[in-house]
């Protein structure tokens, strides 16, 4: 199985799905001639031409809404946001139109669309460019939300998202774009949405995470194993909505101790809901209160010294884990 980067995995998923279905197009700022701000779409313009790989002006409300209208008509547009932070100027098109049209039409109209792009901090770009809106999207019935954390998941889940008949928000991570991993080459390599993944098995403590926090959790698991002889199970949610509640409860029942890690801000973050579900369904299985590590609750800081502390880093996650064991 070839080892490729997360970026290349996304590129393969796009290429395969555009080749597979004539209704699939990729549009966004700088996706074609510039080859993508983060080079995710490199080579696609040459391969598929400007009718499939479409450069848009800096005009998120228009091209997001255009894509929703096209999806209502049966196309399957993939909209790239240079940063998910920029979706805020297209909020109405995503959160009102894409999410609600099916319901408001009594199921007459489908919106098979993908909104994708990076949603993360940790790159010293300041508060406006570092939003992690997976909680906003997951709070909106009608939308699906996924946060792949490995190259294989990036490919398999993006392909599933493009084939999905409902709107799917794919939240990537600029820091993960260079992460390498084994990725199957088959065209039918599709990872169904809503299936969590055990990133490493363990028995003393469960760390439940999504997105890049999974990678941080794995590092902490290694430290705990090597230095403290603690066996940590890391559960990668992969998909926020739909959510694999069974997998969550399974790991909770196995280790009886839970640490939730996410880059979301804490108040009304994704893990607030996960914690609620765990106490509702597995209260008697807990040997300790559920703990959380999120981004520290201030606008994203610019300075490296501040931001590296603000996002869930190895040391903050380790310290919180130690409180549980």
């Amino acid at each position, binding site marked *: 199985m070839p080892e490729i980067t997360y970026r290349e995995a996304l590129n393969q998923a796009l290429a395969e799905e555009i080749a597979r279905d004539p209704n699939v*197009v990729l549009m966004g700022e700088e996706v*074609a001639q510039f080859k993508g701000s983060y080079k995710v779409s490199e080579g696609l313009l040459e391969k598929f031409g*400007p*009718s499939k790989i*479409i*450069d848009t*002006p800096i*005009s998120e*409300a*228009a*091209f*997001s*809404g*255009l*894509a*929703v*209208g*096209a*999806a*209502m*008509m049966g*196309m399957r547009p993939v909209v790239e946001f240079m940063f998910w932070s920029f979706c805020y100027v297209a909020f*109405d*098109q995503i959160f*009102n*139109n894409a999410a609600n*049209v*099916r*319901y*408001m*039409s*009594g*199921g*007459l*109209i*489908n919106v*098979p669309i993908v909104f994708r792009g990076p949603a993360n901090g940790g790159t010293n770009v300041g508060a406006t460019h570092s939003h992690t809106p997976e909680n906003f999207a997951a709070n909106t*019935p*009608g939308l*699906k939300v996924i946060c792949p954390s490995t190259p294989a998941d990036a490919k398999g889940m993006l392909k*599933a998202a493009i*084939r*999905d*008949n*409902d709107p799917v928000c794919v939240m990537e991570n600029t820091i993960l774009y260079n992460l390498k991993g084994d990725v199957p080459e088959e065209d039918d390599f599709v990872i*169904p*949405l*809503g*299936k*969590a993944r055990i990133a490493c098995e363990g028995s003393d403590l469960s760390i439940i995470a999504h997105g890049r926090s999974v990678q941080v959790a794995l590092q902490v698991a290694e430290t705990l194993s090597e230095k403290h002889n603690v066996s940590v199970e890391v559960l990668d949610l992969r*998909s926020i*909505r*739909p*959510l*694999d*509640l*069974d997998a969550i409860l399974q790991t909770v029942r196995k280790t009886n101790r839970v640490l939730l890690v996410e880059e979301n801000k804490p108040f009304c973050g994704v893990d607030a*809901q996960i914690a609620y*579900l765990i106490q*509702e369904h597995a209260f008697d299985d807990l040997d300790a209160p559920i703990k959380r590590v999120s981004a520290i609750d201030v606008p994203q800081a610019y300075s490296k010294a501040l931001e590296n502390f603000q996002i869930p880093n190895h040391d903050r996650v380790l310290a919180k884990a130690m409180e549980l064991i």
Partner: protein
Amino acid sequence: MEGIYHDADLSEAPEPSSVATSADPSPHVNQNYINHPINLELEAEEKIRLYSQMLRIRRFEERSLRAYQQGHIGGFLHLYIGQEAVAVGAVSVMSEDDHVITAYRDHGHAIAVGMDMDECMAELFGKRTGCSKGKGGSMHFFAPDKNFWGGHGIVGGQTPLGLGIAYALKNKGVRGACLCFMGDGATNQGPFYESLNLASLWKLPVIYIIENNGYSMGTAESRHSAGEPLARRGDCFDVNWSVHHGHDLYEVRAAIEDALARARTDCSPSVLEIVTYRYRGHSVADPDQTYRSKEEIEEYKKNKDPINLFRDKLLSEGLMTEEDSKALDQSAKDEAEASAEFAIASPFPETSELMDDVYWETDNPEHKTSSGKLFFESSLSD
């Protein structure tokens, strides 16, 4: 797709086809709309049908207003009364490849495209026999089988959607256009300008129809918009624009037909401002006493009522008699009354239907590809 690497050449910007002010559209002295080919070819039967369509919309809405006052309808009810010639005229020149999308004042467009009064009235009542099974309401009627894509509640929010419909048509090689209706208030929303830019840049067959009824809710045009006419705002994007009288069905038909011809020929977008007037408040909850005078309303009703004007034309053309007109009116009233009875007799949706129609996937469990939890309220969840 053509135009993606388009470099705008402004040296050949077309002359605007009208320079009228929107407060007082020019009389178009050189234009005799009744002699426009699209009107010359109108058969008597079709003229009577158009008259009847306008009557049906008006009587439907009057009946819905009574239902609202009787407590059958909740929320908002934005009435189209006074503007009927715009929807009926525009829809009447559409081909089967043309599509419609509009804002929240959508009952007139819905009936004009052929939705029946029963499904519309039942939707207003929140009944399961409504066009959206009671899940959309007054502002959110849809009939994709009739090329009608809503019914959208957020001012200006439908303008990029109309662009997307036009994009899909062009992408699929269909020689159709999207008529995207909007109000004068929507011309001040940013997405409209973003959409005009893309419509022109990518040459998309979208026709923005500004139904200028003079008021953005309770704010008169002179207090909400700088520069006039509103349609002129298309000029800076090199988009064809013109201003028309909305009380004249023939003029509306001619204007839309010309715009459709441009769209069909080379996918050109257009902005048409159609000056019209609404007799009722912004919504039923609007007391309509603070921002305009009763005299203003009466003046318009007396001189420019689109239904009366068209009736007079048909009478003078000898195509129908006063008795015919009264019979059509009675028939429209009866149909509206029957739709109210239908809505009253219809069942409300069951609470078990609350979670249907959110995701395609949960409505089609035999094709479900994902697993996991999609809903998070435990008393009803999967």
